[in-house]
């Protein structure tokens, strides 16, 4: 299987504090890779290093075949990114946001046009195409943000807690989009705090204090720790307690 994201002893130190401590993993093409951990466990730091936003202190990593030290701009052409901070322009319309990001990713005008039609139809946003993003419900914004992160058809997309603050039904719709993208061969790298979402992932890693404590499919993790749900696994690892 082709490895799209490879991390080898990837480490980031801020002064004496080790935010990410020698994490090692590899993500397959088309895989949905869940990146779990309590707040402050080092998830966001790790993701930022992989996206070329942060220089690692030591270790190696490759994303879409490019090195995170020397080829960050090449990486940026080949990844999509959606952060926990909502990243669309609220004072632009749906259509204008798509056009702007399309332009920034180097799409030609006809391509932007057809992508716009595709997204508007797929997300049923035709009626609000010329409405300011600020007035859309949060769930719609999140799905639009994901579609925009996928505009340039990147081989891998990084999602940092993309579904915070929305109801389970809206989250489920969001995950339908992720499954569809993954089935088309896009690798999905996602951090989340929702344990039901952890169950949806192909494989899950759980970070505790900057280290990866567990990495496997949700089912095998449940079996290994002898619990009914991912929530149980997480409680044992992240809090050192069991809810069983």
């Amino acid at each position, binding site marked *: 299987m082709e490895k799209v994201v490879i991390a080898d002893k990837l480490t980031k130190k801020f002064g004496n504090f080790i935010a990410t401590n020698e994490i090692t993993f590899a993500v397959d093409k088309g895989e949905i890779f869940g990146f779990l951990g309590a707040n402050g466990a080092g998830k966001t730091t790790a993701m*930022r290093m992989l*996206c*070329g*936003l*942060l*220089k690692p202190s030591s270790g190696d990593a490759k994303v879409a075949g490019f090195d995170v030290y020397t080829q*960050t*701009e090449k990486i*940026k*052409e080949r*990844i999509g*990114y959606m*952060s926990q*901070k*909502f*990243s*669309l*322009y*609220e*004072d*632009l319309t749906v259509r*204008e946001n798509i*056009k*702007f*990001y399309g*332009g*920034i*990713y*180097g799409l030609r005008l006809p391509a932007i046009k057809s992508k716009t039609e595709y997204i508007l139809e797929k997300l049923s946003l035709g009626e609000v195409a010329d409405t300011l993003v600020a007035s859309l419900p949060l769930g719609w914004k999140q799905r639009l943000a994901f579609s925009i992160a996928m505009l340039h058809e990147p081989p891998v997309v990084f999602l940092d807690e993309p579904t915070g603050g929305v109801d389970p039904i809206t989250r489920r719709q969001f995950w339908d989009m992720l499954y569809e993208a993954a089935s088309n061969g896009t690798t999905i790298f996602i951090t989340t705090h929702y344990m039901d979402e952890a169950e949806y992932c192909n494989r899950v890693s759980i970070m505790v204090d900057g280290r990866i404590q567990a990495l496997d499919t949700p089912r095998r993790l449940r079996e290994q720790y002898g619990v009914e749900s991912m929530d149980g696994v997480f409680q044992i690892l992240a809090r050192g307690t069991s809810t069983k």
Partner: protein
Amino acid sequence: MRRILFLVEKEFKQILRNRVLLRMMLITPILQLILLSYAANFEVKDLQITIVDSDHSTYSRRLVSKFSHIENFHISTYEPSYKQASLQLLKNSSDIVLVIPPHFERDLYRNNRAEVQLMVNAIDGSKAGIASGYAASIIRDFNAEILTENFPAPPLQNGQVMIANQYWYNPQLEYKTFMVPGILFELLLLIGGLIASLNIVREKEVGTMEQLNVTPIKKYQFIIGKLTPFVIIGLVQFTAGLLVGVFLFGIPLEGSILLMYMFALLFLLLCVGLGLFISNISQTMQQAMFAAFFCLVLFILLSGLFASTENMPLWAQYLNYLNPLKYIIEVGRNVMLKGSSFYEVQSQFFALSLLTVLILSLAMWRYRKTV
């Protein structure tokens, strides 16, 4: 190149959509131009004078009546003694005290000379200087009058030098004429330095900056795309200010209008460079606001917009070598009022170019696409 255009288009959409800011950007400069050039006026009028006449003679009353007939002076009170008059200064109800000592008239007759005393409230030094200057000239007038009365031969024929003043470049000594060329450029600092830096820091705060940083946009593309709209808005504002200055205030535009625009463009590049640099070192809009205001106030106070830079202490004059506003105000006044050509303002041009290159490279070096 295409990325830059997309960015410029997006910025303009956002700016034009922000009605409140747009109105502020276009109206406040004009308002400031009108207010500052009418209100920030250093002409000294309506001076309150307290009289202490201890002589009560014909001559002392004549001297006092000369003051009461001058428009700039208003006699606030008559006090019996020096002590009570100084209380008037203390209470701030008087700007200047004229003390006529006893035997004023007798001394004049007997000794051909007499003394009066002026006490001036000098908390505002420049006002005090002007007030005592006015008072001294009134007393000189009075002096000349009594001289001609007592000596029939006119003293002017005794080889005195007469001074005839003629004011060049601002013949009516209009304060507006002095202020407007300076304010025109000072306003560009607001657009470039303040608004541009706040705009970029805002993207940091809402998180879209991080989103842009994970796209393949190049540093130079971001910088050019982000700053171009503010340069254009600045030029529009400059045009509006120039029109108000020339047609509403009747400020002369003796020099080349092209030269004015060339300098406006250069100065705007410097301003947006400063704005970019401030946005680089600030994480929040509050920080950016503080940094921008610090620079703005410092630049304006030292620039010579209100007070002449040549009278500042030496260290301030050295500091002023780094003050872009000082150079551009000199350019504005020289080109608009004197009609200076490029040759006469070339030293300012080189200084401004150097500062522009310096601040822009500093800002570009400091701008990182990483967190």
